[in-house]
């Protein structure tokens, strides 16, 4: 869901940012296991990274806010393994395997983990880029009910293309199993005044990484 709790840019009321001195890498052993499970399950390619993000966005706003980061990951993992038929709800409820697993195309091996290679999301371009650095663009006002990476605060706003990043996997389709559908990606910069109004500090600018379908010529 696009207009859900995760899209936080510009919200008020969460209080100060408080850094934890000498913060440990993980705050409990289970957090490390969740991190590793997400990586290993991601490597099976049953779902995409965007699909995993979308699964977190499906959490209710109350659950999203009252869960820690790795609790959200855990809930999203549970949701995904059930949704894709890898694990039954009865198995999650009982904590026991009740039927054999299905055969997956890929499994992350110890050697894969040792190699510590992660994926790239750049792809060959299906056609020429519509925009170039210096072009004025307006972010579209879209409110899809599925995953998108165009944050609410930028929608409808006027910006300038600052850089062309190449063609990348398009999250909006990748998240819903509709393919990688590579699209041109741009750095688009907005003034704080355009985003937040005339009272905003003229010395502040914000950029997003915007896929071509998010943008209109202006």
């Amino acid at each position, binding site marked *: 869901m696009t207009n859900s709790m995760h899209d*936080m*840019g*510009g919200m008020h009321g969460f209080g100060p940012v408080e850094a934890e001195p000498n913060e440990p890498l993980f705050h409990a052993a*289970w957090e490390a*296991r969740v991190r590793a499970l997400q990586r290993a399950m991601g490597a099976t390619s049953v779902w995409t990274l965007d699909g995993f993000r979308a699964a977190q966005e499906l959490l209710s706003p109350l659950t999203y806010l009252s869960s820690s980061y790795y609790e959200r990951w855990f809930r999203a993992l549970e949701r995904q393994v059930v949704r894709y038929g890898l694990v039954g709800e009865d198995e999650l409820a009982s*904590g026991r*395997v009740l039927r054999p697993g299905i055969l997956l195309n890929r499994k992350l*091996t110890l050697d894969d983990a040792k190699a510590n290679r992660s994926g790239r999301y750049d792809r060959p371009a299906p056609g020429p880029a519509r925009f170039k650095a210096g072009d004025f663009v307006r972010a579209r006002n879209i409110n899809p009910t599925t995953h998108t990476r165009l944050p609410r605060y930028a929608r409808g706003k006027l910006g300038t293309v600052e850089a062309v990043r190449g063609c990348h996997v398009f999250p909006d389709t990748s998240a819903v199993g509709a393919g990688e559908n590579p699209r041109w990606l741009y750095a688009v910069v907005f003034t704080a005044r355009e985003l937040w109004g005339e009272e905003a500090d003229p010395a502040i*600018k914000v950029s997003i990484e915007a*896929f071509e379908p998010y943008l209109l010529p202006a």
Partner: protein
Amino acid sequence: LKRALRYASLCGPATKDVAMPEDDHTHDHGSELSEMQLRVKALETILTEKGYVDPAALDQIVENFETRIGPHIGARVVARAWVDPDFKHRLFEDATAAANTMGGFDPVAAHLIAVENTPEVHNLVVCTLCSCYPVSVLGLPPVWYKSAPYRSRAVIDPKGVLAEFGVTLPEVTQIRIWDSTAETRFLVVPMRPAGTEHWSEEQLAALVTRDCMIGTGVPRVPQEAVR
């Protein structure tokens, strides 16, 4: 109380001096954490028995974070940029390729983009939509980076956020926020502090903290080193 603790875990520690070793932490939050421990263990067992994951590979992934990946990598990249103009030029052209010419760490796969702090512009990195972070050069993000206060305010109140990190900028310095809304990842190259002209690359790297490379910090030379 339970809800308050969980909320605190989203928003960062409730008080500034709450950092505790893992054992104390577990002891403090007792039942809740052990419940998560059990649930995660159950899921891992199911996924293992069904043949989807290999526990040895999971151990290795955790070990990578504990021993191989961290902000020391980004600090080396920044220090090299400070001492080697040619490297610096290449870093701003293609940060992934430039970093991978250094060796000594796992090759960076991410589409990395280096952004330079100058007297005119200070850069600040955030991911408002989730918590995208340049893991290959900085390791795992701190809780505050993933918290609602940082994700909500970095784009609308960056000066307030910077003040909470003890960073105040000259009036003339513009602030540029980079919202990591795609798979591009940002590394802030801070300004080299004055008085470090004769420092070695290794000494310089020690000044470059994680926060400097996110934009919530600036390198500070210890007083005793200046004298």
